[in-house]
């Protein structure tokens, strides 16, 4: 299977996107934002469709449209929450469902309803070389930024008010990390679609968190687990002739369930030894 050019590219994409998502999942977990991300991933659809309507469907236009729409929805939800009595969860829920509905409506109007499946469930075997480079660039940016700014990011996540009094530019950190998450999400969307993308950006971190209390280990180990899980998922899906995107997310879910069981059994054994 490694002789196949398409498969080679998909395998490389799995390593890059899996590591980026895994590394970022450490942040997502500490930020307690998996549900927000789930909402955001759905809001990318109308951006892609609008970009297609304006400049035609190219990789760059889809990417640009998704980024712009995600930033608009994300920032707008923050602003609405800051200037009302509503929480950001509420404003985001309203905006992302509205945006998703708008996306479906626009796809139908364009006569491209058949492409909906690609955006919902991804198409990792259909990634182009440009897609791969963009994933690599964004992945590198995300990993470097989250590593360089780990100290202020962690302080902001732990206690934002105290972080501000200690000189951390909390607003910039919050908006910056939010933008970074959106960028990562867009590359993931191309690979596994908006519905499955959350599995890739949450599960590795959740799995590693069961075993570590160190944020540094959490970030790095989640990255490695994300890359290994995605690559393994792709190979397994190839062998059993199932959709690659589902195979990737399912593999990561199985990793999590095994880790959870292992942890539970180990604590049972430890308790019995102590008793």
């Amino acid at each position, binding site marked *: 299977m490694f002789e196949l050019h398409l498969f080679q590219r998909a395998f490389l994409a799995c390593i890059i996107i899996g590591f980026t998502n895994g590394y970022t999942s450490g942040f997502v977990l*500490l930020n*307690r934002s998996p549900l927000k991300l789930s909402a955001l991933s759905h809001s990318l659809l109308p951006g892609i469709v609008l970009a297609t309507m304006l400049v035609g469907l190219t990789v760059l236009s889809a990417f640009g449209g998704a980024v712009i729409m995600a930033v608009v929805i994300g920032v707008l939800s923050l602003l609405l929450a800051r200037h009302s009595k509503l929480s950001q969860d509420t404003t985001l829920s309203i905006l992302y469902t509205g945006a998703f509905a708008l996306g479906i409506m626009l796809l139908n109007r364009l006569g491209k309803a058949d492409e909906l499946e690609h955006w919902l469930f991804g198409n990792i075997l259909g990634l182009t070389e440009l897609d791969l480079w963009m994933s690599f660039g964004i992945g590198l940016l995300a990993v470097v930024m989250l590593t*360089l*700014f780990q*100290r*202020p990011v*962690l*302080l902001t*996540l*732990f*206690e934002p*008010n*105290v972080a*501000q*009094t*200690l*000189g*951390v530019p909390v607003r910039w950190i919050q908006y910056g990390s939010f933008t970074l998450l959106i960028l990562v999400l867009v590359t993931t969307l191309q690979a596994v679609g908006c519905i499955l993308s959350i599995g890739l950006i949450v599960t590795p971190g959740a799995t590693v*968190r069961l075993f*570590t*209390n*160190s*944020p540094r280990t*959490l970030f790095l180990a989640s990255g490695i687990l994300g890359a290994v899980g995605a690559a393994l998922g792709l190979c397994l899906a190839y062998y059993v002739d199932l959709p690659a995107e589902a195979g990737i997310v399912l593999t990561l879910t199985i990793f999590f369930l095994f880790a959870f069981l292992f942890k539970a059994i180990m604590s049972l054994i430890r308790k019995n030894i102590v008793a």
Partner: protein
Amino acid sequence: MKTNDCGDTHCAHTHDLSLSEVSANYGKTTVLKEVNFSISCGQRMAIIGPNGAGKSTLLRLLANLKKQATGEINWQEKPLSQWSHEIAYLPQVDSHQRDFPITVREVVAMGRYPQVGFWRKFSKKDQEKVDGALHIMEIEDLADRQIDALSGGQQQRAFIARCLAQEAHVILLDEPFNGLDAESRTHLAHTLKMLADQGHLIIASHHNLETVTRLFDYALVVDGAQVAFGESKQVMQMPEVNNLFHCSHY
């Protein structure tokens, strides 16, 4: 002014925190106005008042988390905003994110961030400051424990240790006695007294009127505006203060 061992020459008689005609708004609503007081290092001051009177807002102004709408807040006769490293802020004990993977030592080390910045490694001096703060607060044996594995009182000591590691002269505490058991309350009271004796200025919002005179040297009473300020024993005898608390839903 009491004898101090803040570690430098900051704490002198001129080392005052002074507020002059300070007011604060949320949007177009004024929530606090006409705040005027001046206080030196080595004192413990309580901010008291009914719910929604502006206690937390005043603390946020002092912590540089909010800008005053009018007036001046000076520390050593210069705007307080220029002295952010001198001010340590402790929100209510449950305000940090739960289940965050962080040890007590790492929490205390956060106090050194203004000195070490985002990237620089901790120097020997920074490590010594962290160790010293853990020692003063008697939590060395808890240093490697996760912060959320501790009781409320122990967490409070860790957060105060962070202020000490920061080398802050002014320590602001939002309702520090809330949610603590009797033993932790006693320990915290001793700690605040010790810090004041060392020359720190302690300012805390507080809601238990019965303990104000015992725990604090000075009291500032607010109710949307300053009602009274002075030595706590005198303030608690003032008719306007008694009227305020008897007439409000305190």
